């Protein structure tokens, strides 16, 4: 399976306002950082990768799949982690929320139970399995969100500011998992330069335009210089 992310003359408009303009880009790096100011179009870029946003013009291919035309296939292939962990909990308890990701995949109850148990163990959530998910701490909720995404075994994980709501310790924990332990391809939208420089390539958006791309340390350095 291809790991290419391919954008061809892509523009996105909301209510007549351009939020992403004429983006042409091909990526196949494993860890991709997306940086830029607020409202620069980086979340729109990320959301196009699993079809949450469809382009007004142009064509997107994610691992060879067109998210606009094949949304179900792309969502099997692409997991999405949102910045607000509260807004991605669907089911009342921790184990049920993870198990929810496996519904409709033709797995037996025993198989689902076994996979959920293994996933919770991997994320250190076993002791909270039957706890109400909303009673977890922010860091644990984000781990739960990651667990619910990764149990579907996606080829690509898109994380939109996954550490925005977390304290320093939990941010490090989530970052270590995403950047060092997770084997999947990663697109991470972040305001944290320390996360961006650990990726293989960085993209920078401003006012809906891709203005910089390349070695993360150099892209971040140029961005920070301009911000001064």
């Amino acid at each position, binding site marked *: 399976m291809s790991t290419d992310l391919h954008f061809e003359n892509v523009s996105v408009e909301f209510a007549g306002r351009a939020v992403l303009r004429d983006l042409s880009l091909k990526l196949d790096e494993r860890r991709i950082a997306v940086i830029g100011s607020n409202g620069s179009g980086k979340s729109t870029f990320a959301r196009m990768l*699993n079809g949450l946003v469809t382009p007004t013009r142009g064509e997107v291919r994610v691992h060879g799949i067109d998210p606009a035309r094949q949304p179900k296939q792309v969502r099997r292939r692409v997991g999405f982690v*949102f910045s*607000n962990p509260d*807004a991605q909990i*669907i*089911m*009342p308890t921790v184990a049920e929320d993870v198990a*929810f990701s496996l519904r409709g995949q033709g797995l037996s109850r025993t198989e689902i139970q076994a996979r959920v148990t293994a996933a919770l163990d991997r994320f250190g959530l076993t002791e909270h399995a039957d706890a109400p998910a*909303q009673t977890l701490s922010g860091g644990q909720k984000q781990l739960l969100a990651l667990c*619910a995404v990764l149990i579907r075994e996606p080829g690509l994980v898109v994380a939109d500011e996954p550490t925005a709501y977390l304290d320093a310790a939990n941010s490090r924990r989530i970052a270590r998992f995403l950047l060092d332990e997770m084997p999947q391809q990663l697109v991470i939208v972040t305001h944290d330069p320390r996360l961006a420089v650990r990726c293989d390539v960085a993209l920078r958006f401003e006012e809906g335009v891709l203005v910089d791309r390349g070695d993360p340390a150099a892209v971040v350095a140029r961005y920070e210089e301009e911000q001064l």
Partner: protein
Amino acid sequence: MYRPGGGLLHRTPAGPKLLTVMALALAISLAPASPWLLAGAAALVLGGYLLTGLGLPELGRQLWGLRWLVLVMLVPQAVFLSLPAAAVNVTRVVVVVLLAALVTLTTRTEDLIDAIARALGPLRRFRVNPNRIALMLSMTITTVPVIAGFATQVREAQRARGVPVQPLAFVVPLLVMALKHSDDLADALTARGID
């Protein structure tokens, strides 16, 4: 909310439990008021909580959680009807709520969803998707503490500015936050492959 356990009620399938509680709720609501009804209902609740294996402390927690509901229902009825009539009516409601809680305490949500989806199966011929209704019910359970958290945030934001709590100034931001949350949840569902 589900509490793990191995009691008789935990081992009973969700469907029969739901049907039994619905039948009991109907009977308790429609039966003529009498001291026997109240005594029987109280014994039923007590027995039910002992059967869960969670015991009387759980019954106490559930009752404490209903204190405001009891107050809101009891006072107006006591004023406009009579205290005995108010007590009977409120007891009926409390018993039904406590019986319903027995189901949620002893049944995993996914089992409840499956049971509800099966029960609503015949609605498919009217183009109603039972799985969607079951999912909506479980998401409602998940969302209650989130909305309660929003209410606390709005109250605290008003207090921090020294603004006295006014109904409109409380409800409008709460509604906005709830609607934003529903948008975010819709995105989360879509991202997890549920359309």
